[in-house]
């Protein structure tokens, strides 16, 4: 059996029982108490997988920039790091996870296509942000694959916390992804509702 066949079999084995698949796009956050597969494709963006090994629940987000840009058309505020992480941790806790047991796996932050590689660049900002966030929140990093120049397809199995990462080298896919990331970069965040119960 070739190594790719062995990998395919191992992957199929892990998928066994996962009937539901959720695909995340930029700004997406999803967690589940059921054994599901969450997948996404990231270039310069970051996908964070958070998992509680005891409760066996997990979730993933997909964010684009560390901080909000208040200009442009409103779109999901979870495209930005702090909000995306806050919502992901809350979603995993709501699914039954205990914050004190959570582990994180982080992927992305690549320089795709013509993206200039410098310290203030989007991929570096994202990588620096997520490292800072995990350290501040005392969230152990159990695996990561960051940087480089290829987009990554990330699959998370919520019941086991196992994550599979595949580097994407197909030029058309890379170009489409880079275009999508550029297009959605400058949009202002859409925030949650505010309610005041007693305004007498």
């Amino acid at each position, binding site marked *: 059996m070739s190594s790719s066949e062995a990998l395919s079999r191992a992957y199929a084995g892990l998928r066994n029982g996962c009937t539901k698949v959720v695909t995340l796009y930029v700004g997406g956050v999803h967690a589940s108490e059921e054994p599901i597969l969450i997948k996404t494709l990231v270039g310069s963006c970051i996908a964070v997988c958070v998992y509680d090994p005891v409760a066996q629940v997990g979730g993933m987000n997909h964010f684009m920039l560390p901080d909000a840009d208040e200009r442009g058309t409103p779109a999901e505020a979870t495209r930005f790091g702090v*909000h995306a992480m806050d919502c992901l941790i809350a*979603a995993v*806790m709501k699914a039954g996870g205990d*914050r004190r047991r959570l582990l994180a796996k982080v992927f992305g932050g690549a320089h795709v296509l013509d993206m200039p590689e410098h310290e203030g660049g989007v991929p570096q900002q994202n990588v620096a942000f997520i490292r800072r*966030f995990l350290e501040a*929140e005392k969230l152990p990093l159990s695996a990561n694959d960051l940087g480089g120049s290829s987009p990554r397809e990330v699959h998370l199995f919520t019941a086991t916390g196992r994550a599979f990462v595949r580097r994407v080298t197909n030029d058309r896919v890379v170009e489409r992804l880079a275009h999508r990331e550029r297009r959605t970069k400058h949009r202002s965040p859409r925030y*949650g509702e505010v309610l005041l*119960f007693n305004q*007498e």
Partner: protein
Amino acid sequence: MSSTILVVDDSLMVRQMLREALAADGHTVVEAENGRDATHLLRRLQPELIITDINMPEMDGLSLIRWVRDNSHLDSTPILVLSTESGKGVIQRGREAGATGWIVKPFNTDQLRETARCALGLREKVLRRAGRAGE
């Protein structure tokens, strides 16, 4: 007017965002990581406003609101919930427990400052009506 505001959230980064936003209006911010730590602080502290998350380890936000409302020295303290929870049921439970308002995360810091100003204004109004202005 400068007030003391207790911020309760299990995320350090969120507490930092709140501290920076509220300090810009001259408020003093005191922080707690969860409801239980907040109750310890509230035995000797009487803040003008409490801002709390809902899903936290040790003691959640709804239990904290009920605890505050059971303590007479905090009866005039408004409580704003700041949570990713947006379901009608949980918001109604928060209101019944004694919350003053509800802000759904992700939140905008300007909007949060404005809501905090409204809640502090409500407190002043209630105290004036009760002849306890300046408390």
